């Protein structure tokens, strides 16, 4: 017994042809767009910007080297301070005060309960006529998250998301800067890019207090909802945050001696 082909066979062939034509048209369109954007990027890199990019990369490498040397020098200073010389009780008192001051200043690795937050740009397509910035993590978002964390009782905070792989997280200290430079956000002048990871150590309940804090709810939570910024947070029983690596010297002032 033979089966007859269905009568729509010929129409189906035409359908195939149309599909392939549309497909090839799409390939052409997307391919051209891709080619154009590659050309544009190539032009940018080969222009004067290339010089600036190389300068920035060179300075970043220098900074990493300086930070490593600073960490090593700090360690040596601490090892001298921890030796028991002169009056033992005076030395012990001084060491205890130094340890306390270092802990408060952010110059010591710390461990404790806390939370982890990750925030990244929205993956939604930006509607025509709407600013792309609405769909990106902005410097204000990071500042609000950090502000809400401090106000919720955080005792130590780090931010990571570096351009350089395996770069240590930036520990926030009294003079830490957070500023936007185009697509990057400078934290302690280290350029970071999303996804940003924020870790904070603080007393129990920090996560809940953060999520209900007005400083978080006022802008960040609304932007997450409205534009689809990727946001996740999780309480942790134990986190270890690295120390601040940088200079602690005062350039324009001196400590006032206690009377």
């Amino acid at each position, binding site marked *: 017994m033979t089966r007859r082909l269905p009568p729509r066979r010929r129409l189906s062939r035409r359908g195939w042809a149309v599909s392939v034509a549309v497909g090839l048209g799409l390939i052409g369109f997307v391919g051209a767009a891709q080619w154009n954007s590659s050309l544009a990027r190539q032009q940018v890199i080969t222009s004067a910007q290339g010089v600036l990019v190389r300068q920035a990369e060179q300075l970043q490498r220098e*900074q990493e080297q300086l930070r490593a040397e600073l960490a090593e020098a700090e360690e040596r200073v601490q090892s001298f301070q921890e030796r028991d010389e002169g009056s033992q009780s005076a030395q012990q008192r001084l060491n205890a005060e130094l340890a306390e001051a270092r802990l408060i200043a952010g110059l*010591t690795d710390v461990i404790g309960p806390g939370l982890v937050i990750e925030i990244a740009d929205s993956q939604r397509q930006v509607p025509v006529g709407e600013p792309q910035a609405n769909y990106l993590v902005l410097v204000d978002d990071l500042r609000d998250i950090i502000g809400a964390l401090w106000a919720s009782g955080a005792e130590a905070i780090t931010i990571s998301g570096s351009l350089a792989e395996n770069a240590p997280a930036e520990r926030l200290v009294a003079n830490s800067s957070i500023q936007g430079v185009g697509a990057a956000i400078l934290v*302690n002048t280290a350029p970071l890019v999303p996804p940003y990871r924020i870790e904070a150590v603080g007393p129990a309940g920090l996560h809940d207090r953060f999520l209900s804090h007005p400083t978080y709810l006022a802008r960040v939570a609304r932007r997450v909802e409205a534009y689809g910024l990727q946001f996740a947070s999780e309480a942790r029983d134990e986190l270890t945050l690295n120390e601040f690596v940088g200079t602690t010297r005062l350039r324009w002032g001196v400590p006032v001696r206690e009377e």
Partner: protein
Amino acid sequence: MRAWVAQISLSLVAVVIGVLLVGQLRSQARPLELSSLSAQELSTLVESLRVRNVDLGDGLADLREQIREYELRDVDGQSNLAIGEEDLERISAFAGLRAVRGQGIEMEIEGSFDPQAVNDLIYELRNSGADAIAVNDIRITARSVAVLGTGAIEIDGVPIGRSFTITAIGSPDGLEAALQRPGGILVLLQQSIEARFVITKSQELEVPATERDLAPQAARAVE
């Protein structure tokens, strides 16, 4: 047989479209490389990195000098207490536990601020390299943040009122220029809220130590 060929062709076309679309979407996604920043942004980044590296280099030189002093005292058999005391002063001042005296600016401010605007002002001073900052007599530490308290803006639990003064130890010219640059924080705030700013440069200012107990309750030093 022909139907199979057509199906395979169409599948191949679909795969190629998919690959190209992914490439295109990725190239339209947010640039994550330095090369994607504009010349102006790169200039700002280069300048920030340069300033920071000079600062780190100076800090490293200070530490090496300190190490040399320790080594010399070791050789002479002298006590290291004096250097340790100096280190304690420096770290305490950095953390906000000790008052700082030096040159800088004083900014008298009046206006209908919200907490974010106050925090933005503080960040602008930090970004401009201020060594120490106080709002009225409240020393700004790492953990200080302006929030809306019961009817007023508070920092570290202290209300600051509608008129307040910010004192910053730092380069007087550098801090003033950063605050007043075109498109800078003061211009933005004056456009968005009713505010008045009077900046005075000074060679002799003092920022007090924090009155807040900063000893952590949950965070412990890693041994």
